């Protein structure tokens, strides 16, 4: 086995670092440039939305004020979004984790069929589901309720959650679970204390993706939350209007988009360490 001299490696790394940061900068600009344009547009006065100045000549918070103005009830919409997305994520992740565990660790016939069926649930255009669901919800009195949005969101999130978790669980070192059982832990303890921490990157990533998907759902929400009391942010934004039905409230829409994105970014900032570092395994004693 050849052992390369450590010194030979380091200098090469250093010059590569410079290019690395250039690359990072390019990627950051790529991700942020349109968002920057969104922010700039929201800071321009409502009647100046047409100009193309990259730096706004005068900053106005009118659009942001308009977002929270009386008729829009945007604060309520943010709360509704949090409730709906939060409930969806918690339930979908719990159910998803259990299902993924069953699909990876337990042998039973029909497992592949179940995986296929779960995947197939993600293959239908949303509009195909809309009308029958609306009729069903109208009949059982679920119009204008949170569950009318949470339940469909869960069914949209489950395939993604289950398939992602399944693929992560498959790669886990299950020998450790065996070892833990030999040491006296039961199946649930072994799972909770050994496997789950190791799968943390996958679990947290899936949690964030599910939350964002639920936060941004529009089709079902717009049709079942009619009187606005339970409308999430996406529906509230669709109701923004200018001074007439033809005027596009571009500035207000951009301001609302900025406001709606911020909680998600904060969420990611809070969770991002968990995504990459996982938790140091308590599994190895």
């Amino acid at each position, binding site marked *: *086995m*050849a052992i*390369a001299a450590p010194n030979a490696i380091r200098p090469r790394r250093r010059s590569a670092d410079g290019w690395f940061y250039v690359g*990072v900068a390019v*990627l950051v600009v790529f*991700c942020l440039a*349109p*968002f920057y*344009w*969104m922010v700039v*547009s929201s800071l321009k006065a409502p009647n100046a939305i047409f100009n193309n100045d990259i730096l706004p000549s005068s900053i106005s918070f009118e659009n942001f004020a308009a977002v929270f103005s009386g008729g829009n009830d945007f604060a309520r919409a943010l709360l509704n979004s949090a409730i709906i997305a939060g409930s969806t994520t918690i339930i979908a992740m719990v*159910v998803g984790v259990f*299902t993924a565990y*069953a*699909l990876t*660790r*337990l*042998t*039973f016939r029909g497992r592949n069929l*179940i995986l296929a069926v779960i*995947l*197939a*649930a993600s*293959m*239908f255009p*949303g509009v*195909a*589901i*809309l*009308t*029958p669901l609306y009729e069903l919800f109208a009949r059982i009195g679920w119009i204008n309720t949170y569950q009318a949005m949470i*339940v469909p969101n869960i*069914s949209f999130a*489950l395939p993604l959650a289950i398939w*992602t978790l399944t693929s*992560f669980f*498959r*790669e886990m*070192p*299950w*020998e450790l679970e065996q*070892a833990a059982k030999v040491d006296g832990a039961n199946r649930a303890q072994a799972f909770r204390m050994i496997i789950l921490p*190791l799968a943390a990157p996958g679990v*947290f990533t*899936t949690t964030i*993706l599910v939350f964002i998907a639920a936060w*941004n759902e529009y089709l079902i929400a717009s049709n079942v939350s009619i009187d606005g009391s339970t409308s999430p*942010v*996406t529906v509230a934004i*669709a109701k923004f209007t200018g001074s007439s039905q033809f005027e*596009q409230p571009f500035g207000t*829409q951009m301001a609302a*988009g900025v406001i709606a*994105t911020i909680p*998600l*970014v904060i969420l*990611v900032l809070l969770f991002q360490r968990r*995504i*990459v570092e*996982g938790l140091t395994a308590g599994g190895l004693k």
Partner: protein
Amino acid sequence: MTTNITDTQPSTNGSPGRSSKPAMSPATPARRARGDGRFALWLVLPTLLVLAAVIGYPVLRAVVRSLYDDRLGRDPSFIGLDNYASILFGGGAEKFWAALGNTLFFSFTTVVFELLIGMTLALVMNRAFKGRGIVRAVVLVPWAIPTAVAAVLWKWTFDANGIVNHLLGSQILWTGSEWPAKWAIVFADTWKTAPFIALLVLAGLQTISQEVYEAARVDGAGPIRRFFSITLPLARPAIVVAVLFRLLDVLRIYDLPQIFTNGANNTRTLSMLVVEESIGNLHVGVGSALSTLTFLIVFIIAFIYIRLLGARVMSSANGAS
């Protein structure tokens, strides 16, 4: 039977060492398998119930409805597969095949670009450097913006007198001609969803321990060799799932082209056609047939994809299928 845990080496950062060989498969006694079945049922049942109620029921109704001539006006009449015949070969064929072509174009181009950009983002976020946390949050911004708001943003950005033409000094009619519109849509969709792939691939990269890289480096493998022999194979499960779900989503793409061009200049997709017939023209029989056909197309493509690339996806951790 016990596994020798001394075969796996503890690593310095706490996560267990991983060999690139597949995990060993302990034999499972037959007695255990039967007990597994009932336990598994209880774990899997909630998922299946929710999916059956929310998706299964509407889909079945749609399939039944697709066999009728139903325009919400008079009583529907049963016509068997006539709706399908009309869509595939008859009056609706031109629109259908054009929409299918557009959908496939959008799907394959965006997925390829997203994969390239997403993987690059993931590799970057995987390395330790100052400001890494902020970069990770920044990378997620495109994915986090509500879809409708992003679509409106792109529509104004690509307006004939918008910022893109302003910066390029051109007067391209992005929303008014076929290929500029198509590429603009591809760009906008790639921008929005590359973070999705990046995040999933990043999680996959986390399961690869540093020692594997160390060992390879010590063996003299260069960065490219390490990428293709270690990174790609070990992150493969995450990549496969990420691309699969992106594929499923983009084959049903609706919001972006709808707001961008309203389907003009041959940018209509399958989902837009479904909405046009079901909700626009109120031909719910034809609309249901179209959504069933869309499902079949998505199913076939997903099937081919899994067959070609993800064959291991369906097998379990201990090697049994």
